[in-house]
């Protein structure tokens, strides 16, 4: 399981935790997060700004 950080606002996406409040189950790999998912903190879409692995 990897941890990713939003390039714009530094929000952390932890694959182990997912983002269940927005329909992303715990354990969802970043590559499996849908392209229309957007960063819950800043609204940047996955399709626009890839996350960096930290």
């Amino acid at each position: 399981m990897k941890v990713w950080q939003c390039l714009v606002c530094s929000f952390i996406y932890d694959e182990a935790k997912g983002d269940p409040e927005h329909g992303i189950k715990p354990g969802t790999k970043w590559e499996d997060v849908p392209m229309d998912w957007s960063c819950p903190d800043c609204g940047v879409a996955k399709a626009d700004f890839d996350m960096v692995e930290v």
Partner: protein
Amino acid sequence: MSTQPVVIVGSGLAGYTVAREFRKLDTQTPVVVLSRDHGGFYSKPMLSNAFAQKKSADSLLMKEAATMASDLNAEIRPHSTVTAINPQLKQLSVNGEVLQYSKLVLALGADTIRLPLQGDGADDVLSVNDLDDYRRFREAVDGKKDIAILGAGLIGCEFANDLIGSGYQVDVVDLAPQLLGRLLPPESAAYIQRKLEGEGVVFHLGTTTQLVEKAGAQYKLKLANGESLVADLVLSAVGLKPRTALAASAGIKTNRGIVVNTLLQTNFEDIYALGDCAEVEGRVLPFVMPIMQAARALAPTLTGHATPVKYPAMPVAVKTPACLTVVSPPDAGAQGEWKVEGGVDGVNAQFHHKNGQLLGFALMGAAVGEKSKLTQQLPAIL
């Protein structure tokens, strides 16, 4: 006749996001992005929390101007200053040359507010408003120990947490009696203050800095309450002021920001504004989420499909690791009152209208988990 370009003034998140969204809809019309600085793309929100992560200015630069130009199929002009706009002729003066536009997008950003300080050290007070500022700050702070921060708002608190976590001694001075003045009820402000004090930050509230004078390699600050502080470096973070002068001199209507309607259109049909420089239906919202919403609406408008911007409720995360905080402040002048439930592990503050409608919140620590549920209950802003 060749098509005149869409010209975007500003290469921050607002300018570049408009360019990107526009290109998704129109791959033909020329796009020119004018940048006052290097034109590289970076994340401004990270400037106030990059220190603890040991990020240099170079590592924060994600894409250079040339890369952005090829990604966006746009002409990026670094180090280009616009000195005048002629709305009647649809022309700009850029570095002394004339540039014609078909549509003009002002994404000028905001300047830092500077306190009127006395003393021979006043000109040495730094502020961090862009990547070049960050580079200067990183160089200046290297090998130093005591940092004085002017301003206990969002950016001041983020810097305080970032620096204290990196081994610095931090003093914060603010005229307001509490932290994050406009965003929080007093009980919540007291909670985050205790958390930051627990990390070692020293606050001087309800007073202001009057004088900064050189004292050897250090600075001596005199506060209005009679206290004095000694610091190796003084950082100012007292707020932002939308950049309006260029627009105002061209006859574009300005108030606190450049005045635009829900189409992000100024009083001139082909001139638009968004981001930190814009006042959208009376609101200046210098945060990332409003920029994304505005850019996604403006792109179709620029292609001829008028699309009003919609602002859902947009909570803001305060990046203070000592005290996780998410706020969605009620409108200034909103009728209602705060109800605060606090515990040892967090504070849940909610602002309700007397009819029961939730109008705002401030969540800290464990209460941050309530964010999504509460955000759904908030009314849309626009």
